[in-house]
C-alpha cells in the first residue's frame, strides 16, 4: 500500500517535470559549465562512470572464490548476469568457440548503449545516443576493433579478402569492398541515432498534445526500443567481427 502511494506520488511529481523537460528542451546537464554544447558528452561520461562504480561495488565486496555463487535474490549483479549470459549465448552462435575473447568489448558496448538509451526516459535528461556524434564514436570503435581483430587473427593476409575471390577482378572488387566496409559504421550509427531520437520525438510530441497517461504508453515503447537497438547494435558488431576473424572461402 505504501509502495503504491509512493509510486503515485512520484508519477504525479514527475509528469509535469517531464512535460517541462519536453517542451523547453531542458536537461540537467546544461547546468554544468559549457553545458549547452557538451550536455550529451556529460551524459555519456556520467553513464560510463555510473557503470564503473556499479561494477566496482558489485565485485569489491567479494572474493574470487565467492563470485561463482549467484546472489540469492534479484540484485543488480543478477540483472547484469542475465543480460550477459543471453549475449554470450548469441555470441557463441555467431562467433564460434572463441567468442569469449570478444565478449568484454561487446558486452560493455551493449550495457553502455542500453543505459544511454534508457537515460532518455528519465524526465530532465536527453539520451546521449540521440546525438549523432556519440553514435558515430561508438560505431568507429567497433569499426576499428573489427579490423584490428581481423589483422590480429589472420595477419597481413587479412587484407587479401578485400580483393575478392577472383584475382583479375580485384581492381573492381577493391572499391566495392571499401564502400561496403565504410557503409557498416555509417549504418550502425545512423540506425541507433535515428531510432532513439525518433522515439524521443514521439514521446515529446504526445507530451505536448496530451500530458497525461498517453505518453506513458510511448515510454513503455521507449524501453522496448532501447533494449532492441542496443541489442541490434551488438549483434551486428558480432557479425562484423565474425566476418573479419573467421576465414572461409566466402565472407
Amino acid at each position, binding site marked *: 500500500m505504501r509502495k503504491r502511494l509512493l509510486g503515485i506520488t512520484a508519477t504525479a511529481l514527475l509528469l509535469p517535470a517531464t512535460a517541462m523537460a519536453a517542451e523547453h528542451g531542458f536537461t540537467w546537464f546544461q547546468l554544468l559549465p559549457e553545458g549547452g554544447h557538451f550536455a550529451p558528452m556529460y551524459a555519456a561520461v556520467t553513464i560510463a562512470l555510473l557503470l564503473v562504480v556499479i561494477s566496482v561495488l558489485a565485485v569489491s565486496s567479494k572474493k574470487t572464490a565467492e563470485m561463482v555463487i549467484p546472489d540469492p535474490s534479484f540484485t543488480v549483479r543478477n540483472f547484469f548476469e542475465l543480460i550477459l549470459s543471453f549475449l554470450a*549465448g*548469441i555470441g557463441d*552462435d*555467431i562467433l564460434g568457440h572463441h567468442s569469449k575473447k570478444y565478449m568484454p568489448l561487446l558486452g560493455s558496448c551493449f550495457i553502455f548503449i542500453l543505459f544511454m538509451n534508457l537515460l532518455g526516459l528519465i524526465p530532465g535528461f536527453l539520451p546521449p545516443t540521440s546525438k549523432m556524434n556519440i553514435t558515430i564514436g561508438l560505431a568507429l570503435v567497433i569499426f576499428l576493433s573489427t579490423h584490428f581483430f581481423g589483422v590480429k587473427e589472420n595477419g597481413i593476409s587479412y587484407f587479401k579478402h578485400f580483393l575478392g575471390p577472383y584475382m583479375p577482378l580485384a581492381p573492381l572488387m577493391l*572499391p*566495392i*569492398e571499401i*564502400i*561496403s566496409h*565504410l*557503409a*557498416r559504421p*555509417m*549504418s550502425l550509427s*545512423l*540506425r541507433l541515432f535515428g531510432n532513439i531520437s525518433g522515439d524521443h520525438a514521439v514521446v515529446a510530441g504526445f507530451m505536448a498534445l496530451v500530458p497525461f497517461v498517453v505518453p506513458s504508453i510511448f515510454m513503455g515503447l521507449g524501453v522496448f526500443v532501447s533494449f532492441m537497438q542496443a*541489442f*541490434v547494435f551488438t*549483434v*551486428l558488431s558480432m*557479425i562484423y567481427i565474425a*566476418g573479419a576473424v573467421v576465414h572461409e572461402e*566466402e*565472407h
Partner: protein
Amino acid sequence: MTDKDDRRSFYRELGRYGALGIEMSISVVIGMAIGWYLDRWLGTAPWLMVVWIGFGFAAGVRSLYRAAIQAQREADKEEKKDGKPGGD
C-alpha cells in the same frame, strides 16, 4: 531445436536482415560522396561520381549477396542437423 534456441536465432536474424536495407542505401550514398570528392579534387565532374555511384550500388548488392550466402549455409547446417538419425 528447443524453444530457447528458436527465440535466439529469431533475434539474431532480426538484427542481421534488418540491417540489409539501410546498408544498401548507405552504400550508394557513400559511393556518391567518394565520387563527388574525387571529382572536386581531379576536376573531372561529373564522371567519377557516376562511376562511384555504380560501385556503391554494387557494394549494396554485394552485402545482400553475402547475407544470402550466409543464410544458405545456415539452412544447409540446419537440414544436416535435422536429417541426422537420432537427432530431434
